[in-house]
C-alpha cells in the first residue's frame, strides 16, 4: 500500500469536506484495501466514514432505507428485508463469505470495482487502471468476462450479487456531495465502459453514498436469486439471475429481471420484462424472454458458453420465481 493520510470523519459534511483529488472514502474496506495492496488503488488520503451515523435500516415512505454503512450481513439478516425483499437477502448471502459480509457496507458493495484478472495485475496494461494503455483481456484469458455492453476499451464485469438484486428491485441511491444531495435510480448508478472504463459509476467526485432506498415491499414470495459459478460457494458469478414476478393467477403482472456476471453493470432488459408482462407464467414465455435478452449478447474468445448459460439460467430463474421456490442458499441443488 502506498503512503496516505488518514482522516476520520464524524459527519457526512466533514467527509465531503475532506475530499479532494486522490482521496477515497473507506468503510468496510474489503475491496479498497484489496486493491491498494495490488497497487491498483493508490489514494493520497483515506477518509474513514465508518463512524458516520449511516448504519441504520429504517422504514420510510412505505419502503425501506438502507443506510450506506449498514453491513451486508446486517441487511441480509434484517427481518424487514427478509419479509419484504427476500430477493435482496438471497443475493447478498450468495456473495462473498460470512466474514466479508460482516465487514462490507451497502455503499461499498455498490462501489466494488471490476472483476478482471488484468485490472488486478499491475504488470499488465488495463484501460480501466491506466486509461489508454489497452485491454489485454480482449483476446486473452476472458472466460469470466462480459457478454453484454462491453466496449473495445473494456470487457470487465461488475462483481456484485447484491447490486443485481437492487437493480431488479429498482432501488434508488441517495448520494451527498459538494454539489448537494441527489437521488440516482439504480439503473443509472453504474455505467457501461464505453470509452471511459475508468469510470465505474456516475458518482461525481466527492459524492458519497448515503443510503439505498427500496420501494414498497416487492416480490415477497415469487422471486429468486440464482447464481452459477465455478465452485459452490465463495466464488463470483459466471452468470446470476435476480428475478421477481407479480402474478395474477397464472398471468405475469409485473416482471423484473437482472443479470449478474455478464456486464459492467447489473444487466436489465426492459423489453424482455415488458414482453413477459401479460403473458402466462410458462416456460414458453420465459424462453421467449431469455431469447430476447441473449439476442444482443456478444461473446469474447473464451466465453461463448456464457450466452447459452445465461439463456438457460434466465429460464430457470423465472421458473423458480413463478413457482415461489427460490434458490436455496445452503442446499446447492438447483430447484
Amino acid at each position: 500500500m502506498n503512503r496516505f493520510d488518514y482522516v476520520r470523519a464524524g459527519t457526512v459534511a466533514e467527509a465531503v469536506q475532506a475530499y479532494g483529488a486522490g482521496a477515497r472514502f473507506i468503510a468496510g474496506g474489503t475491496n479498497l484495501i484489496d486493491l491498494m495492496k495490488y497497487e491498483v488503488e493508490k489514494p493520497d488520503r483515506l477518509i474513514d466514514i465508518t463512524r458516520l451515523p449511516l448504519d441504520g435500516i429504517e422504514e420510510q415512505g412505505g419502503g425501506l432505507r438502507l443506510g450506506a454503512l449498514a453491513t451486508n450481513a446486517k441487511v441480509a439478516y434484517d427481518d424487514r428485508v427478509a419479509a419484504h425483499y427476500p430477493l435482496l437477502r438471497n443475493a447478498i448471502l450468495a456473495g462473498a463469505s460470512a466474514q466479508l459480509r460482516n465487514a462490507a457496507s451497502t455503499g461499498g458493495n455498490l462501489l466494488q470495482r471490476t472483476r478482471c484478472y488484468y485490472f488486478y495485475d499491475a504488470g499488465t496494461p488495463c484501460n480501466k487502471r491506466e486509461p489508454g494503455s489497452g485491454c489485454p483481456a480482449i483476446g486473452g484469458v476472458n472466460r469470466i468476462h462480459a457478454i453484454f455492453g462491453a466496449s473495445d476499451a473494456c470487457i470487465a464485469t461488475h462483481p456484485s450479487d447484491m447490486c443485481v438484486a437492487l437493480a431488479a428491485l429498482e432501488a434508488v441511491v441517495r448520494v451527498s456531495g459538494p454539489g448537494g444531495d441527489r437521488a440516482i435510480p439504480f439503473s443509472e448508478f453504474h455505467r457501461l465502459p464505453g470509452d471511459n472504463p475508468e469510470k465505474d459509476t456516475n458518482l461525481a467526485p466527492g459524492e458519497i453514498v448515503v443510503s439505498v432506498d427500496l420501494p414498497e415491499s416487492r416480490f415477497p414470495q415469487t422471486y429468486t436469486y440464482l447464481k452459477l459459478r465455478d465452485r459452490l460457494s465463495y466464488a463470483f458469478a459466471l452468470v446470476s439471475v435476480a428475478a421477481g414476478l407479480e402474478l395474477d393467477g397464472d398471468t405475469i403482472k409485473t416482471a423484473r429481471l437482472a443479470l449478474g456476471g455478464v456486464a459492467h453493470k447489473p444487466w436489465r432488459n426492459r423489453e424482455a420484462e415488458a414482453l413477459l408482462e401479460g403473458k402466462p407464467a410458462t416456460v414458453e414465455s420465459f424462453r421467449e424472454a431469455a431469447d430476447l435478452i441473449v439476442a444482443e449478447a456478444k461473446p469474447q474468445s473464451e466465453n461463448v458458453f456464457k450466452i447459452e448459460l445465461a439463456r438457460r439460467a434466465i429460464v430457470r430463474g423465472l421458473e423458480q420465481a413463478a413457482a415461489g421456490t427460490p434458490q436455496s442458499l445452503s442446499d446447492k441443488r438447483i430447484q
Partner: protein
Amino acid sequence: MPGLPAASLDDTMLLEKTPPVPADARICITLTINGQRRELQVTPWTTLLDLLREKLDLTGTKKGCDHGQCGACTVLVNGTRVNSCLTLAVMKDGAEITTVEGLAGLGDRKGSNALHPIQEAFIEHDAFQCGYCTPGQLCSSVGLMNEGHAHTRDEIREAMSGNICRCGAYTNIVDAIEDVMQGAAR
C-alpha cells in the same frame, strides 16, 4: 487524544484548519486484544493482521492470501468474524479483538487454561492437518455460533465456506462444529 484530528470534530471548518494525519505519522489507538487493553501507535496503512503478527507477536492469526480470499486471518472484532487482512487497524480504534490465542478465555471457562470447546472438538475430530488455516477456522466457527444462523450441516458448510482448507479437512471441521453446537444445545 493525539493523532486524530477529525474524530471528535463536528465543525467542518475546524477540519480545514487541522491538517490530516501526515503520511509518515503514527496514530494512537486503543484496542482490547484478548481481554487486554492496549494503547498502540500504528501507521494508517497497517492492517489489523500485520499489527497482530508483526508488532504484537500474536502470530496465531495467519496470513494465507492477504486479500480476503482464504479466511486464514479471521478474527473476532466485537464478537463478529472478519478478515483481519482487509481491516486497517486505525479504523478499529476502541474495538475488542479476539484472536485464536484468546479463544480459550471466552465463554464459560473464562480464566481457566482449558481450551474452548471448539478447540477441543477440532482436536477430537482431527479437523486440521497442517494447522495453518486452523486459527481462522476456529475464530470463524465461534463467529458462526455467535451469529446463530447456521443449524444444519448444509448451513454450516455454506457459512464456513469463507475459510479455505487446502488439506481438505472440511468434513471433520463440520463434524467439530456440529458437535459443539449440539453440546451447547444440550
